């Protein structure tokens, strides 16, 4: 699909990318303890005896974490393993109280799946399927704070034991754009499912980026892994920088070493963290404190039944049932909040106009994507902070749909709604924006405009038809914008012959 190539001194190179995404499971409590998981709490205030690995403390799996991982697996059409198991990954570090991380190496809860990404918003043909190898559940570690004391590091265990899903892709991506699209799509799905809030700036979602380069058609090269990359943009930058670095290295006669790297966004470069030689021997073995996880059919059925309509299906429905453009359908389904907002708007508009949703969907989609998004953009606000509610938006659309106000008046009403938060009908009333469909009044106004612009009428009749818009504008101006534009058009056409 992608023909992204690095142009090296000795020819073209292809980049091969795989992502391991760590997504924090959205639950109130940690994976194996009852401690809370809220972001931004004071250090060490969300730590149970289990999280601090006190002697004799034991992990008890949080059923909700398992449920969310299974729902996520179902959402990417993956195989769900009805029997899975937790293993211990052993290593010493100050942010890892137990001296091991409870993870799933040998028997992950979710097996093979895939997601489809669209590389170009405007081109529905530009899709590619990215394979997902597995999803497993594991504990997060705590955090070291190096800026609290001149010679010591402090440890904050609030994150210790928080549940993560590690979502491991196949090395199926071939360009920065594909890696970015994959991560963005994965984030969208997780947010639809509700299994992860996708807040990358809070660390709820981060990616380890595996990159290698090769001559097109040749076997995979040696890969590096750049850890903890926390935005779509940075992932794309890592791929680009790392691929270029590897090509330059190889072309200089060097060899890529398998190693862990870190991304420095300020300098836009990756740096070596540790090589394979000093890699840990994690001594994985099954956690003897925990029983295997066995899922029954009723549990799987509940997980399946609780899944919402997913982005691909929703987008398809918007296009085929609601008749939206591919572009609008894409924009409105990219974020779960946007689609929820749109559907509430659509429902309100349809109800107030007494029409089926499919008849008013285009109007609603256009208004939302151009009018409201534009206005919110100017205010620097997101949709969730919009002072205009979906119901109020629906009311406004109904006023236009029923012909009570004109489209241009609707723009003014929206501005006032954003300013005051008042209902559109109140604003229309107060500002006197109700448009007139009184043909007598419109004819009088048209007659006056034509009389005052006899020269232009002559030009128009002489063939300068572009002047029609001028007459419309003058008439509307004379009617203070309240003339029903359709009737104004009709009357003008009749009078100008």
């Amino acid at each position, binding site marked *: 699909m992608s023909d992204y190539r690095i142009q090296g001194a000795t020819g073209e190179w292809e980049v091969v990318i795989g992502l391991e995404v760590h997504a924090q499971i959205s639950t109130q409590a940690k994976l194996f303890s009852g401690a809370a998981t809220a972001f931004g709490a004071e250090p060490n205030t969300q730590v149970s005896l289990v999280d601090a690995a006190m*002697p004799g403390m034991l992990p008890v799996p949080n059923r909700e974490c398992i449920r969310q991982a299974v729902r996520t697996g179902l959402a990417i059409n993956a195989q769900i393993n009805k029997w899975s198991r937790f293993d211990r990954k052993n290593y010493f570090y100050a942010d890892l109280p137990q001296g091991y991380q409870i993870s799933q190496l040998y028997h992950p809860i979710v097996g093979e799946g895939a997601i489809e990404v669209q590389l170009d918003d405007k081109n529905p043909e530009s899709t590619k399927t990215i394979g997902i190898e597995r999803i497993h559940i594991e504990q997060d570690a705590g955090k070291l704070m190096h800026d609290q004391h001149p010679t010591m590091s402090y440890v904050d265990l609030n994150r210790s034991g928080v549940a993560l899903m590690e979502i491991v892709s196949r090395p199926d991506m071939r360009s920065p754009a594909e890696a970015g699209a994959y991560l963005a799509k994965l984030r969208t799905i997780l947010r639809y499912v509700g299994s992860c809030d996708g807040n990358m700036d809070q660390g709820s979602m981060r990616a380890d980026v595996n990159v290698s380069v090769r001559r097109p058609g040749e076997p995979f090269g040696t890969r590096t892994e750049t850890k903890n990359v926390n935005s779509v943009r940075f992932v794309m930058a890592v791929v680009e920088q790392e691929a270029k670095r590897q090509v330059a290295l190889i072309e200089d006669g060097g060899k890529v070493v398998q190693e862990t790297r870190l991304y420095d966004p300020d300098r836009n470069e990756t740096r070596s963290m540790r090589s394979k030689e000093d890699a840990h*021997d994690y001594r994985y073995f099954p956690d003897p404190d925990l029983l295997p996880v066995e899922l029954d059919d009723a549990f799987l059925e509940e997980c399946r039944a609780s899944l919402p309509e997913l982005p691909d299906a929703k987008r398809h429905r918007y296009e085929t049932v609601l008749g939206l453009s591919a572009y609008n359908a894409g924009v409105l389904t990219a974020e779960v909040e946007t689609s929820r907002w749109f559907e509430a708007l659509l429902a309100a508009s349809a109800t107030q106009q007494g029409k089926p949703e499919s008849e008013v969907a285009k109007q609603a989609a256009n208004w939302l994507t151009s009018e409201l998004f534009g206005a919110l953009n100017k205010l620097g606000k997101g949709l969730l902070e919009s002072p205009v509610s979906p119901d109020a938006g629906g009311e406004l659309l109904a006023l236009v749909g029923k012909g009570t106000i004109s489209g241009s008046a609707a723009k003014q009403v929206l501005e006032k709604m954003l300013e005051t938060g008042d209902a559109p009908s109140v604003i229309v009333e107060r500002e006197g924006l109700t448009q007139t469909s009184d043909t007598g009044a419109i004819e009088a106004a048209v007659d006056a405009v034509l009389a005052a612009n006899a020269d232009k009428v002559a030009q128009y009749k002489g063939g300068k038809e572009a002047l029609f818009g001028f007459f419309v504008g003058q008439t509307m101006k004379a009617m203070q914008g309240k003339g029903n534009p359709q009737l104004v058009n009709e009357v003008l056409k009749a009078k100008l012959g």
Partner: protein
Amino acid sequence: MPKTASELTDLGVAAIREGVAKGEFTAVEVAGAFNAAVAAAQPALNAFITLTPEKALEAAAAVDADRAAGKPLGKMAGVPIGMKDLFATTGTKTTAASNILGNFVPPYESTVSQKLWDAGAGMLGKLNLDQFAMGSSNETSAFGNVISPWRREGSEAQLAPGGSSGGSSAAVSARIAPAATGTDTGGSIRQPAAFTGISGIKPTYGRCSRWGIVAFASSLDQAGPMARDVRDCAIMLEAMAGFDPKDSTSLDKPVPDWEANLNADLRGKKVGIPREYRMDGMDADVARVWDEGIAWLKDAGAEIVDINLAHTKYALPAYYIIAPAEASSNLARYDGVRYGLRDLPQGAGLQDMYAATRAAGFGPEVKRRIMIGTYVLSAGFYDAYYTQAQKVRTLISRDFMDAFQTVDVILAPTAPTAAFGLGEMVSDPLAMYLNDVFAVPASLAGLPAMSVPAGLDRQGLPLGLQLIGRPFDEQGVLDAGLAIEARAGFTARPAKWW
């Protein structure tokens, strides 16, 4: 008629509970008598790491008050006990007999100890043990070894009380505690019980919650009671057992009325005698007592059946892979960061702190097992050792399940010899490990198993017999134990020299 202090300390769990309930004596009198006996014996036996006479008195006073108020009394009401220092006790130092936890005072109470307090028991103190329960002689304790109250006839040589629950066995056999908690990973209740002429049962894996017990090997660790006789074990096990949602491996099954259902009539029962346990060069006294045990069970009405437990000889090596592997990981948390010992040399970094702390905090046997465990889990060795050992474990369980198709309970010696002298084995860890040879198979299979005193060897030292039952059939084990107890007529006790 009021009892003297030594009459009170001669009483076991059932007798104390009954006497307190009937008002023959008060719980406070009992606690006072045992507190005094503990204090008097402590310099000689070193059975305790921490003494808590006030805890024993406090619990006793509460029982006496409840009785006076006419409230119902618990299963262990008025019984002061020793608590192995592996159980976390709120506000009382919990050391696992290790320097790394030398000053550790937990802010939480283990499920098992809490259940015992809820049942009316009181705490005499925290009992000494092998460090992190790793050992068979109590010589790995960082607080000095326990000395067995038993001596060979005509000798003053110091003997091992067994391990790892050596403080428990010494205290119960010396009559300074009517009962004590133990934990058994590969024989740590049964072997010390056998060495000191008392009874002890390791229940089915999962019967007793592991929550709050300092972990050695999670898939094997089980708590259980150690007491003077089978009935006392049944009473105390009822108080200790029960489902605990805080332990994922806890059994979600009701606790049976083991005491009420005790029945030494074994008519209709079949007892299996495993051929593989009769080893070449077996101690003659051990063989003799085993034969006597067979005769007693026959006399109790049981049919004796020879059985095969074909993979027995692989049990010990498998155990000494699995237990250290789990231990190497379980003990990683003792790193000097959050609690316990921290050795931070001047200018040291994190790795130096780990090294210094663990070097200073762990004893040699603990270090040896961490190293063995780390080795067997290492890349390249994992399959050859750990995976293979797990396969052996499965085969051993299968041997037992096959045998239990035919028999109801299995009879075997508890340990290959009577108690050995302190210092006799420390230089030879493999010989020490061999002490567990009869105990380990039931541990690997998670089966209930108990040791009951059966007789004395030629030097006047106690020997125990082991009964192994089906999963969840503690009753069958206790019943067979009771049948032996009734016929063995074991009344020997160590002559008081302390």
